[in-house]
């Protein structure tokens, strides 16, 4: 089962939630944010080059112009490879674990997998972010030796930052799977 739905993030931009149900106990949620816009790219490049040209008229050194071009290219590549996240995916597999993947604009993917033994719960929490109060989905981890204490809080969808309606959909699906997993597991 696969479907797509459009939501908005906390700044008002558009994000697309894509749900895939591979089997009754394996579900995947992909959240894609908007790609790098041509407008902002042009604005930044023009600003940098104008500043470089201004410095050039002051210093009469043509190295400044080459340096500006170099800086712009390296900066753009670095931004695409290390900063701009295009899509975030949450894959939840009953009795195996939860996997979170972030795909960057340059194609790089960084993955984290958490085993089901370590997952205590999936919750929606509130946070104060600058001047706003936002909701975010997070996974509570526990130490297998101490099952009643929370050892770590891992937030999900940190770069897309969707609003509450999108989070509720994901939360409901995850809770179904976690409830099934708790019902069939041996350990408390």
């Amino acid at each position, binding site marked *: 089962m696969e479907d797509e739905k459009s939501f908005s993030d906390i700044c008002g931009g558009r994000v697309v939630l894509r749900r895939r149900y*591979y089997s*009754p106990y*394996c579900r995947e949620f992909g959240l894609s944010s908007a790609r790098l816009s041509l407008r902002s790219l042009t604005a930044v490049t023009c600003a940098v080059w104008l500043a470089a040209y201004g410095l050039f008229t002051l210093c009469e050194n043509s190295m400044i112009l080459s340096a500006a071009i170099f800086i712009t290219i390296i900066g753009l590549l670095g931004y695409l490879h290390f900063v701009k996240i295009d899509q975030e995916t949450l894959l939840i597999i009953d*009795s195996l674990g939860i996997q979170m993947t972030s795909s960057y604009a340059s194609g790089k993917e960084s*993955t984290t997998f958490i085993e*089901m033994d370590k997952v205590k719960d999936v919750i929606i929490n509130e946070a104060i972010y600058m001047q706003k109060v936002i909701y975010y989905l997070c996974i509570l981890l526990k130490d297998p030796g101490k099952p009643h204490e929370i050892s770590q809080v891992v937030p999900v969808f940190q770069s897309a930052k969707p609003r509450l309606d999108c989070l509720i959909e994901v939360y409901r699906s995850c809770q179904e799977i976690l409830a099934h997993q708790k019902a069939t*597991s041996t350990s408390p």
Partner: protein
Amino acid sequence: MGLMSRGGPGGLEHLRPPGPARRGAQPSPFPTTRGRGTGTQPLLSWLHLPTVLPGYQDGETTASTGSLADIFVTMAHSEVLFQNDYFDEGPFYLSHWQSEGPPGMVLKAFFPTCCASADSGLLVGRWVPEQNSAVILAVVHFPFIPIQVKKLLAQVQKASQVQVAVLGTWCHRQQEPEESLGHFLEGLGAIFSHDPWLQLCRERGTRFWSCKATYHQMSTTLGTPSDDQVMLIFYDQRKLLLSWLHPPAVLPDCQDGEATASSGGLADIFDTVARSELLFQNDQFDEGPVRLSHWQSEGMEASILVELAKRASGPVCLLLASLLSLLSAASASWLWKLWPLSFIRSKLSTCEQLRHRLKHLSFIFSTEKAQSPMQLMRKANMLVSVLLDVALGLLLLSWLHSNNQIGQLANALVPVADRVAEELQHLLQWLMGAPAGLKMNRALDQVLGRFFLYHIHLWISYIHLMSPFIEHILWHVGLSACLGLTVALSILSDIIALLTFHIYCFYVYGARLYCLKIYGLSSLWRLFRGKKWNVLRQRVDSCSYDLDQLFIGTLLFTILVFLLPTTALYYLVFTLLRLLVITVQGLIHLLVDLINSLPLYSLGLRLCRPYRLAAGVKFRVLEQEAGRPLRLLMQINPLPYSHVVHTYRLPSSGCHPKHSWGSLCRKLFFGELIYPWRQREDKQD
């Protein structure tokens, strides 16, 4: 009492072992349900409607009180009885409630990708009941003799402490479906009974497999579970075999014959594959009684050079180790502990670096094998670091000897030293006048200025005396670059320290003067207010002074206050110069540290063979079809570069600055001397 043999389907012979027939479920006298319902409740609860359990065997007769509590207590206390079951190799065959994975939980089958195209046969691997998962390690092909298979598995189990067993059957139908094969495979379930019994089947022309897991005890009541309950996870056997998981999972030591306790799900799977290496030594092309299909190695190394190198490495290591131990013994001898030599030795960073390198080399060439992967990586990192060092040093040497660089350097050195001395003289003349518009105390100014000028004059004469020998000294020092770039850089740092020795002396004079002045001022300020420092109580107490004490104290205080700007200015100037020299030396030491401690072998391994250093795993869902079991691909998630450097960095020689910024500022204000690289000799073991 012989072995019975009868021809099976397809003309294959299989022999039945002697002993009681190990069939599946016995018809039980009482109807029971497996695992849930009344079977488990009395054991795990305190107050329920009791039911008499089948196979209730206890050594004693029950006390006939007839109370229900009695039955519950007896049940609960007999838990130790339930630990051996019908399928264990024990003197008794007991039939009772079995503790297995709860029903409804998904069964995970880890299948190696290299066996996906293998012929039909038996699945061999390890069953982990706590996670309801089966790790399949190899496929045994037809024809085989069950006794041989069991013998091989027992052998592997004993040698590697991994509970290897026959888990099920694998059926790869390349031609038309054969009904007889199906029956034959089911018959095998009777010989190698394992609970649950897996049946994986692959048809030709379709990518999707069919998997069935049969639980023997459940088969009488619940029937075979549907395909939905099995999840197939493919893994690359070779990569899993060779990779090391970070952080390394600490597994409890296991005795011979006992099952390994499972620590955490995935670490367990890594460990199972890594420990079963013995199983992978026979493959399907070997002429043995049992033909296995699993990850294949590339075969024996055939190059004679490699073989010769392997043979020669032993004696060469021995020779080098003995030479290095001789060197270390010589360097640790009592001669070096005599006063002038030990003092020089502690101050020069070159000796420190040489000692560090000697330690590294003796560790690399030690004749004992590395105990853990961590030690192996350390050895490899040290070796690569030493090789890179020597290579860079030789590069530097070749550059120095080309175009007569040494001569040019030597000719440039004396004028540079002269220039530095001249600049210092100008600075002192400026201080003796009215520096930055400040008005100095003329007398003190002149005294200090002339004192320092005389020192500079001495220094210049010394440099001029040394100038004919500088080229020779430089040439010999340049030879040391063949020991490594780090040694050359340490020598450079020491040369800078020697050449700026006069700046160091000026700093010490200025700092001592300033320090004395500050302490005197603080003590006389306390006197001015009528207080005193109590050394016993470490606090300020009031004190009544005599009139003449107060008078002299106030006079001295006034003198010191008015002389403060002059001393403070000299102190400031020379401290700044000293800090400049320290910064240059610090940068050189940082570079040396970087070459010493960067784990280049680990970084190269992470770049070229990322599966060796694993931070975890990642899963990818493969193409799905409704009604078929879920298929996942498990890949290794490599460790990020920052974690690689953090985990494997080599210990440096410990010449980092010890002070924080706050304590440094405090020391500068009070005029205490700063030694950024002190206590280096205290850290030696």
